[in-house]
């Protein structure tokens, strides 16, 4: 199992292959489309993160030592971002997730999606993923 930073570096390498923004976004959209569908039962009011323009749903479970995340969004580009965040953070221990420094977003040129704090709920989602780690850590 790759570490959080190894996965981030993989993503940076993958995005490094694209020459223009359109290819990057087509790849991101593709990641969004391929995101494993979230169990509808998890799309509860409790799991929703309301952005001004689109909603994100986030659910977390503890599998052994690791946290597994499930998420979805109404907007496909946000889903692409979610897909990457899950790839980076899911299946790691609470301690690893709590300490994670998510540098890949900036390096692949997608920081704008985290800057639009009100519109898409992504910032709140990252925070919530870390909150789950803190909570599971406290329970352990």
């Amino acid at each position: 199992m790759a570490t959080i930073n190894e996965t981030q570096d993989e993503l940076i390498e993958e995005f490094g292959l694209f020459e223009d923004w359109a290819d990057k976004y087509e790849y991101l959209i593709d990641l969004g489309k391929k995101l494993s569908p979230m169990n509808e039962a998890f799309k509860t009011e409790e799991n929703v993160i309301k952005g001004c323009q689109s909603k994100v749903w986030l659910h977390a479970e503890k599998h052994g030592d690791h946290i597994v995340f499930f998420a979805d969004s109404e907007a496909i580009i946000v889903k692409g971002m979610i897909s990457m965040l899950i790839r980076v953070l899911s299946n790691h221990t609470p301690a690893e997730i709590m300490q994670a420094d998510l540098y890949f977003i900036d390096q692949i040129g997608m920081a704008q999606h985290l800057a639009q704090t009100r519109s898409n709920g992504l910032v709140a989602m990252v925070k919530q993923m870390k909150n789950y780690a803190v909570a599971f850590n406290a329970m352990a």
Partner: protein
Amino acid sequence: MAEKFDIEQVRKDFPILDQQVNGAPLVYFDNAATTQKPQMVIDALNHYYTRDNANIHRGLHTLAERATTGYELTRKKLKDFLNAESTDQIIFTSGTTAGINLVAQTYGRANFSKGDIILVSNLEHHSNIVPWQMIAEEKGAEVQVIPVDEAGILDMKAYVELLDTKRVKFVAVNHVSNAIGTINPIAYIIEQAHRVGAKVLIDGAQSVAHFEIDVQALDIDFLAFSAHKLFGPTGVGVLYGKRALLEAMPPYQGGGEMIKEVSFASTTYNELPYKFEAGTPNIADVYAFGFALDYLKSLPKNAVWEQEKALLDYATEQLMQIDGLRIVGQAPEKIAVVSFVIDGVHPQDIGVLLDKFGVAIRTGHHCAQPLMARYELVGTCRASFAFYNTKSEIDLFVKALKRTITMLS
């Protein structure tokens, strides 16, 4: 006044338009959110802070005199712009929202009582809903809604029926819908409200940039709008009110400027308009706003409307040819705003990708969630035009939109 509308010259007057965004020429179609500023306005701001800056109305020195004259000159220009009876009825606020809140918190607090109805429409921006809900809750009054039909037209029959309950004390409607562009029949709305003794506030945020408003001819009780949607600076709003109403209203905020005499035993308030302008106002931006009005006046008569109408017709025709695209809001009387949705695509995704093509539009609920709920939409994409936009920009936008849809599907 210029003889002919020269689009090339007009575009040069707005320096911001000439730039690349994400490697493509900027296409700015978010004019309903805020308009761009002509060089005259930018120069005026620079001039004010370089030469004239001082606090107004009290100082005896030359700079204070210049600053005061500049500030009050804009009030005079606004009086002419609106055909108001006097400059005393032009109150500077921080924006449309502040003007509406002022009326709700002063006129509303003094005049609403239990069981009264405050009417808003289903087309309103949140800022013309929430201030009324707040004061209604406080006074035990009720906010009721004028319904809107599928095309985006207010139901005037339902409106008159609501008025005939004889409980309506106040009507607050926008002149133009920010989300879908419908022009509401405010002359009729005002006439009918007055028939039952109700007062009317017109939210003019989306109309002042597009056509002239004569407050006397329309018999408007209150009109609120923002300078930044009228080619002026941000942070300035205008509230017009009928003299008798404004005079009877208690002051809003207390402080300097709004007083006549202060002692710890009692304070007397200043006269109109200063009674409602507590504290040091936004002098520089008010001063510069006057130049935006001058700029508009320098354009040939009807040029703004004709140019925008041509853009609206062209954009509508081009967009209708896109498969799966549906225009939301098809009222025959519309300003140059096209709100649309595309089957199976979230508006946010469209907005993000169009930006990559240098095209600025607005996506989302446009602070009109009750209207989105009416149409069962999470939001729309909204392209809103100003007179400095061109058909070739619409071509760039449509091309980018088609490419965007392909990428997303």
